[in-house]
């Protein structure tokens, strides 16, 4: 009997203990490895700037000037609930939020009229059914019936919820590509923070269009672990893409700021500068950093965000898309033969990586390559992508096309290259006719016996 009772109590305790675990964890965005390698005094302003401009996953922040659909919603206070003196929150019923997203907790609420005009508060809780908003009490703001306000980042929050549900477990909370399931995957999930996407319809130097990302979400990437999310509605997909691009912008902004500081103020550099050879004292370095922070850093932040935002905006313009000047050359044996000769020629050097038979085993896979970021040789043979993963050139016989199997997809891969990988862009060096010949040859390989 003793066995039964004590064990039974233990057994009952287990679900009780695990209950608090059901709450949504208040996770924060992570910072890049390079940011954490800065000396703490230099990393702090970077982190602060990011927090000010982007917030955290559960406290999103609106930052003007980004090509992001934040989705502000206007509301009006209908009535204010009377509250006790010692209650920390003040609740009020509102109108205007009925047809919008139902989860607004954590979003900034900006008063646009009344006593607190211009002030921003975080929504502490929100009940969609009764349209009740609760914010923290403060001396300056006493909401009155009829006051108007903006709830910011509603669309972004919707994207965040969908992202956290469908994408986060691989791509990570900050889009850093290290979610809990990512360790089981090869190729690893994309790290969005470089703002580089492989399969785009845009010109070589341009970023991805939102439509490209939406296509990837909907169709998945054959041959990788990225599955198709076709059952999501178009609206949901566009909310996810909106959020993913925003995560990219955050990561790129961070990178640009850190790159500005890294040369002079990394931990490693500090050690070198304060060593005997460097001959500086720590105080001198800190003094210099302080000057930089006061004079140049604001401009750096400004430039980082605006250049990233401009690049994304530009990618979505119509003339960023690669459109062939000539229609596809008829897929005849002659065209394929011309393509084959081009493939083997010195002009394209396709065979160096993809192999003379297109088996993905060219001689380049046996070389040691130089990392374009650090200018050092990779420790292992073969090609690498910009994220540092080893990358084998595609075996063209497998009939799996990660970026889509339409002729236009292959054309665009050839025209613009594959961004972030050693696959070069041929749009400038080959004519349309030649590109289409190559497309015809490459797309015929999977069906060509064993040649």
């Amino acid at each position, binding site marked *: 009997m003793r066995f039964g009772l004590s064990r039974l109590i233990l057994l009952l305790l287990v679900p009780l203990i695990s209950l608090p675990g059901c709450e949504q964890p208040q996770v924060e965005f992570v910072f890049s490895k390079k940011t954490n390698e800065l000396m703490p005094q230099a990393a702090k302003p970077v982190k602060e700037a990011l927090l000010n401009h982007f917030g955290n996953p559960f406290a999103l922040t609106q930052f003007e000037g980004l090509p992001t659909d934040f989705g502000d919603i206007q509301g009006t206070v209908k009535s204010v609930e009377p509250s006790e003196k010692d209650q920390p929150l003040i609740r009020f019923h509102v109108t205007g939020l009925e047809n919008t997203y139902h989860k607004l907790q954590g979003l900034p609420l900006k008063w646009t009229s009344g006593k607190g005009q211009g002030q921003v508060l975080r929504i502490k809780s929100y009940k969609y059914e009764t349209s009740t908003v609760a914010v923290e009490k403060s001396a300056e703001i006493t909401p009155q019936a009829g006051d108007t306000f903006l709830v910011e980042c509603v669309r972004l929050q919707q994207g965040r919820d969908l992202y956290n549900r469908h994408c986060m*477990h691989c791509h990570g909370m900050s889009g850093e590509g290290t979610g809990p*399931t990512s360790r089981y995957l090869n190729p690893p999930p994309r790290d969005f923070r470089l703002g580089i996407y492989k399969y785009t319809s845009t010109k070589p130097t341009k970023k991805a269009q939102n439509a490209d990302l939406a296509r990837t979400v909907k169709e*998945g990437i054959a041959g990788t672990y990225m599955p*198709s999310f*076709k059952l999501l509605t178009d609206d949901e997909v566009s909310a996810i893409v909106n959020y993913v691009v925003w995560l990219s912008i955050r990561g790129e902004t961070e990178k640009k700021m850190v790159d500005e500081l890294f040369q002079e103020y990394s931990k490693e550099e500090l050690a070198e500068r304060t060593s005997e050879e460097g001959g500086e004292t720590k105080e001198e370095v800190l003094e210099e950093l302080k000057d930089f922070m006061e004079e140049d850093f604001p401009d750096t932040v400004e430039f980082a965000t605006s250049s990233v935002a401009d690049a994304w905006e530009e990618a979505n313009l119509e003339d960023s898309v690669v459109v062939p000047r000539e229609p596809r050359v008829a*897929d005849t044996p002659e065209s394929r033969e011309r393509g084959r000769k081009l493939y083997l020629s010195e002009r394209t050097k396709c065979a160096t990586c993809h192999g003379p038979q297109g088996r993905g085993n060219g001689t380049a896979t046996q070389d040691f390559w130089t990392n374009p970021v650090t200018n050092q040789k990779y420790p292992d043979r073969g090609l690498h992508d910009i994220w540092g993963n080893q990358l084998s050139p595609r075996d063209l016989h497998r009939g799996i096309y990660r970026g889509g199997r*339409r002729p*236009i997809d292959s054309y665009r891969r050839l025209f613009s290259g594959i961004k972030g990988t050693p696959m070069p862009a041929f749009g400038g060096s080959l004519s349309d006719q030649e590109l289409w010949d190559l497309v015809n040859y490459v797309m015929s390989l999977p*069906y060509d016996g064993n040649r």
Partner: protein
Amino acid sequence: MGKGWCLFFLFWPVAAVASCAMAPFVNWSFPYDNAQAASNLGIRIDGLFYLILVITAIVFIGTQAVLVYALWRSVNNREKRAMHIHGNHKLELIWSIIPGVILLFLSIYQMNIWADFRIKKYFPEAAVKAPLAEVTARQFEWRFRYPAIGKKLQQKPQSDDLYSVNELHVPFGKPVLIQLRSDDVQHSFFLPALRVKQDALPGLQIPVWFEANKPGIYDLVCAELCGWGHYKMKAHVIVESDGEYQKYLKNLTQKQFYDGLGKIASKDSSRESEAAEK
């Protein structure tokens, strides 16, 4: 306390029968609001289900009634002692033969349906002759390969095959056959609305046929735990009229051979573009 136990043993069968009886009205029954199966074979399979349900219900209610009756009788008759019986040949024969006959009846009765569903010899000829598509299950999505319009599905991929993912279009009112494969681990092709379920095994190609009898959008889910993303391995099977199905294929052809300028060229361009326009 004796009567209490009687009530206790009475309560459970009554609760079981009551919950069974109300199941169709509170959505505990067949999926999709207890809708009739969307295929004729599915309706026959449901018939089997109901037959077995009726048989087991009769047996269950009968045995429970006897149990409660026996309890009740002895509670009211405390004088009479229980007695031991060492074997009763007649009784044993009865309780062996009756279930045996029932099981034999069920196994013979369902044979036709099973054969129609699973034995290749009895598959509808039209479906076997021209398989609709190859379905490849993969962690964690469904990929489909249709033959080009007017062509037959080949074992190996062809250059003019049509591809789609997580969306299978099927004409209704006509039996179709799909070749089921798996790219990685075990999956299961489950169409709840049509009562079709077949495991997909790596290295095997398994033919599955079904005939939808009404248009609609049906769920295709994976019914074999295949990994951490099993829950999201879901697709739609879109059952539509033959005309719409042909239109879909034409559309798919056009999309797949899109060259960025809205023109379609292929190996022998006259026939291909004709096929696309048809």
